[in-house]
């Protein structure tokens, strides 16, 4: 009996904790918007974060984009060949990449490369009391640390997604046209006929949401590390916060992808 009560209690604690975390994350978003509306406006921190989140992820994005494009080209070719409609290859690759895979894969890559290090950085700043030092000097940590990261995420992830899409189309082209000999014209023109502005817009909207979501979750996990049960102390806390941040933001990306797709 008491063990049952204990289990129910654990469930309740888990739910409350999850709710608290979500609340803190979105509170942080409001805080960022508030800070954005108030001077002083400083652009250089945003540029630096864009360099870190965006420009330095470019190689990874290009390599993974080409790979995904090639894989899609290969698989779609094999499937379409069975139905004798290889001329739809361009349309298939383009719609798949632009609507779904581009935004999602880019967001997941950014989570792995930049998100984890954001959490670790903020977590270490928290446990070494650097955040407290900022507050002592009356410097708003939200403005100084969080806002540039979230804005940089908002701007960088869509830009990275566009590069990913572009490169993936050429990956598909390489496999479809150069390796399997699909007609070049039917690849590109099928793509141009099938993809509408709405598709590009959907991909763009998704990537903007993902950009904010990923950086926000990673920031809040690191910044509020001292408030979580596991992350109260030391290096172990930073490692578990980082793991949490990566897992949570990946899930958030996948779930919101479905949500946006269903609503659009």
């Amino acid at each position, binding site marked *: 009996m008491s063990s049952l009560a204990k289990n129910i209690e654990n469930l309740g604690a888990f739910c409350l904790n999850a709710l608290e975390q979500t609340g803190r994350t979105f509170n942080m978003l409001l805080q960022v918007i508030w800070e954005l509306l108030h001077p002083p406006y400083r652009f250089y921190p945003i540029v630096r974060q864009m360099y870190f989140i965006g420009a330095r992820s470019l190689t990874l994005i290009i390599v993974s984009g080409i790979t995904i494009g090639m894989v899609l080209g290969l698989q779609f070719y094999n499937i379409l060949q069975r139905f004798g409609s290889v001329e739809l290859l361009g349309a298939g690759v383009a719609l798949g990449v632009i609507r779904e895979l581009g935004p999602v894969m880019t967001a997941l890559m950014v989570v792995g490369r930049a998100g984890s290090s954001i959490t670790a950085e903020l977590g270490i700043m928290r446990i070494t009391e650097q955040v407290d030092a900022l507050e002592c000097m009356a410097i708003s940590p939200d403005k100084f640390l969080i806002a540039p990261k979230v804005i940089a995420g908002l701007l*960088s992830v869509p830009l*990275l997604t*566009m590069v990913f899409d572009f490169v993936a189309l050429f990956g598909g082209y390489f496999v479809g046209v150069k390796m399997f000999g699909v007609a070049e014209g039917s690849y590109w023109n099928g793509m141009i006929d099938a993809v509408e502005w709405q598709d590009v817009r959907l991909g763009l909207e998704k990537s903007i949401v993902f950009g904010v979501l990923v950086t926000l979750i990673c920031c809040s996990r690191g910044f509020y590390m001292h408030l979580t049960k596991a992350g109260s102390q030391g290096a172990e806390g930073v490692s578990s916060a980082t793991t949490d941040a990566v897992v949570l933001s990946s899930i958030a990306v996948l779930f919101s992808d479905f949500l946006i797709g269903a609503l659009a």
Partner: protein
Amino acid sequence: MNKINVQLITGLFVMLGIAAFTYQAVTIGGASIREVPGYTLTARFDSISGLRKGGIIEAAGVRVGTISSIKFDPDNYKAIVNLRINDGVPVQQDAIASVRTQGIIGEKYIKLSAGGFPDLLTEGMEIHETESAVSLEELVSKYIFDGGTKK
């Protein structure tokens, strides 16, 4: 030095991203900033099943315009289609607009066939000669069920 480097690389990254976006939006997505100059004609069809807004208008197999809107006419139960025809494409008063399919299961489009009348249609006028969408299912069922009876 380091500072310049960061800004330079970030600037290049932003330019690359915007270039990739423009390529997708304009070339592949077909979003045009300015409208292609043209004029709008209307046409009434009994059925346009499968035709959609933004579809293609072809004359002799060449793309000469797009379908700008599709409405339902409740008075005589017909579909009213607005056709945006590019400038420089003459449409005679007795030209025929027919709903056709690309291939057997392809997308629906409107085919314009030239008429013999010397007068041309202008902005807002109506194409009176129309042919509706041919439904493969209807044709097949007609063939099967009417085939035995003599005409």
